[in-house]
């Protein structure tokens, strides 16, 4: 069922067992799992079924620290959520991404990759993915890794028909959950706002915010402020450990040829370090994206190399004569260290039209990440030299220790953390089942539960986690 307004939904008399807040990849996946299990679920979507300027305005906020995107363009507030502008790149976080790293504080998840693997077949169907291919070691330190460029499922489009037909699922558009109420053990209601006014509260047995990697924290922070801590009783880490995937152009490489590793349909290839390399260099995970450059780019690089190593340049010049596609730009994206001071707080100055404080995002890249960028490129360059695949030149700004460029992509629009998963209530908000510590009926879905970010795009992993949570809730409710 789908309702275009709060009033239409309230008039229907539908009684949900579960209220899911948000209709993006996490919310839709959880609702579909519950609906399929015969459990009545209401999905509250703040926007309509298409983009509107008015709805996006609720996402405005401010950023303190490193340059970052405007918060209202970095996510979307309508049916299907941010899947509506998702690029579709897919990879599941590696097993070692879930493990603690002794050289990086506050890393490690309470679950492992094996806990989400049973749900990956479902994820393939949800995201229309081909099978994953295993990593291919290039050297002891570097692996070729697959990043699937999928058709980019728009959840609102793909699943709208199913949601409309389901007797167990009610999707309510144009309805904003401004806050949850609670008593310190349970959430007691979800307060609704639409058509410019308060619409009262709705209730259910369970509540699952899936409003995105920024908005989940905002909702819970505001709920906690209004309820004097009765929605998230252990809130030390609430909004904290927020993470992104910074990404910058890292240099250029001359390649002897492209036959030594698989490239995708757009002549791109991706590489990541081995766990051994990360440990030896004391760095975090990273991904190098290799993109072919035009012929003249190769000539320029060889000219530069000639000033350093003429014999090698001559050898490459010979290769250039045989194979014109022999140079590439390198982009590096990396895992961001989980740092408590990278956090979402509620603005003291600015509120949205419903009176909810806007987000003030505090975000800064750390020294560990700078080392990950530079050492990661060295790992990559040494591996390619060792195998004689090519020679890498690291960008001057990295070699010289200059500031990050401000005219590049900056990051991946990947919003992670804020309600992270941890056994320690001082370090996280949800437990291994994504239930808020100390609360009986409040769960969180989406990438805000990520304890660490890994290096890959988050949608595949968050969808798997959502399928896992849907499965868990179905069993809890069915018991």
């Amino acid at each position, binding site marked *: 069922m789908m309702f275009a307004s709060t009033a239409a939904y309230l008039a229907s008399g539908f009684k949900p067992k579960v209220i899911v807040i948000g209709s993006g990849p996490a919310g839709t996946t959880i609702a579909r799992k519950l609906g399929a299990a015969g459990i009545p679920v209401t999905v509250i979507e703040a926007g309509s079924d298409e983009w509107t300027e008015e709805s996006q305005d609720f996402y405005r906020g401010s950023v303190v620290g490193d340059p970052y995107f405007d918060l209202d363009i970095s996510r979307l507030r309508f049916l299907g959520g941010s899947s509506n502008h998702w690029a579709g790149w897919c990879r599941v976080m590696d097993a070692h991404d879930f493990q603690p790293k002794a050289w990086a504080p506050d890393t490690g998840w309470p679950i492992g990759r094996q806990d989400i693997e049973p749900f990956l077949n479902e994820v393939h169907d949800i995201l229309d993915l081909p099978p994953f291919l295993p990593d291919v070691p290039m050297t002891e330190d570097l692996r070729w890794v697959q990043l699937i460029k999928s058709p980019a499922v728009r959840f609102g489009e793909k699943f709208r028909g199913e949601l409309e037909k389901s007797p167990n699922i009610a999707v309510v558009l144009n309805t904003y959950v401004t806050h949850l109420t609670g008593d310190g053990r349970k959430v007691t209601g979800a307060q609704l706002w639409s058509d410019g006014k308060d619409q009262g509260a709705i209730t259910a047995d369970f509540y699952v915010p899936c409003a995105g990697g920024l908005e989940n924290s905002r909702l819970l922070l505001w709920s906690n402020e209004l309820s004097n801590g009765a929605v998230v009783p252990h809130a030390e880490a609430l909004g904290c450990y927020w993470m992104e995937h910074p990404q910058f152009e890292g*240099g250029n490489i001359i390649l002897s040829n492209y036959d030594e590793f698989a490239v995708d349909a757009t002549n791109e290839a991706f590489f990541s370090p081995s766990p051994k390399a990360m440990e030896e260099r004391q760095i975090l995970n990273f991904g190098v994206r290799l993109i072919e450059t035009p012929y003249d780019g190769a000539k320029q690089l060889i000219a530069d190399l000639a000033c*350093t190593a003429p014999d090698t340049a001559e050898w490459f010049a010979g290769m250039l*004569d045989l194979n014109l596609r022999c140079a590439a730009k390198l982009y590096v994206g990396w895992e961001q260290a989980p740092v408590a001071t990278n956090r979402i707080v509620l603005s003291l100055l600015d509120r949205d039209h419903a009176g909810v404080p806007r987000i003030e995002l505090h975000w800064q890249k750390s020294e560990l990440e700078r080392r990950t960028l530079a050492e990661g490129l*060295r790992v990559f*360059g040494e591996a*390619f030299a*060792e195998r004689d695949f090519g020679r890498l*030149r690291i960008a001057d700004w990295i070699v010289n220790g200059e500031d990050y460029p401000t005219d590049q992509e900056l990051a991946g629009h990947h919003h992670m953390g804020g309600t992270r998963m941890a056994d320690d209530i001082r370090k996280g908000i949800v437990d291994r089942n994504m239930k808020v510590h100390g609360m009986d009926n409040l769960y969180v879905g989406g990438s805000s539960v990520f304890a660490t970010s890994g290096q890959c795009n988050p949608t595949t992993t968050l969808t798997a986690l959502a399928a896992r949570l849907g499965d868990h809730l179905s069993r809890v409710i069915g018991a």
Partner: protein
Amino acid sequence: MSPLPRPEIRLVDWLNPKTSISRRRFMASLATVSAAALLTRTMQPTRRDEFVEVNGWILKRSDLA
């Protein structure tokens, strides 16, 4: 040191993407690289002995032989 051969084109010519060059001319251009450039490079050790970092290039030590 024997004198360098006279280049058929200048380095800046073959850097121009519109310039069509032969392998022979390309090699001749490379040969014009000043030996001084080799003396001013800053070589930095890497974690592994078989590699060096020079002007941002990650090279095998044998590349510089």
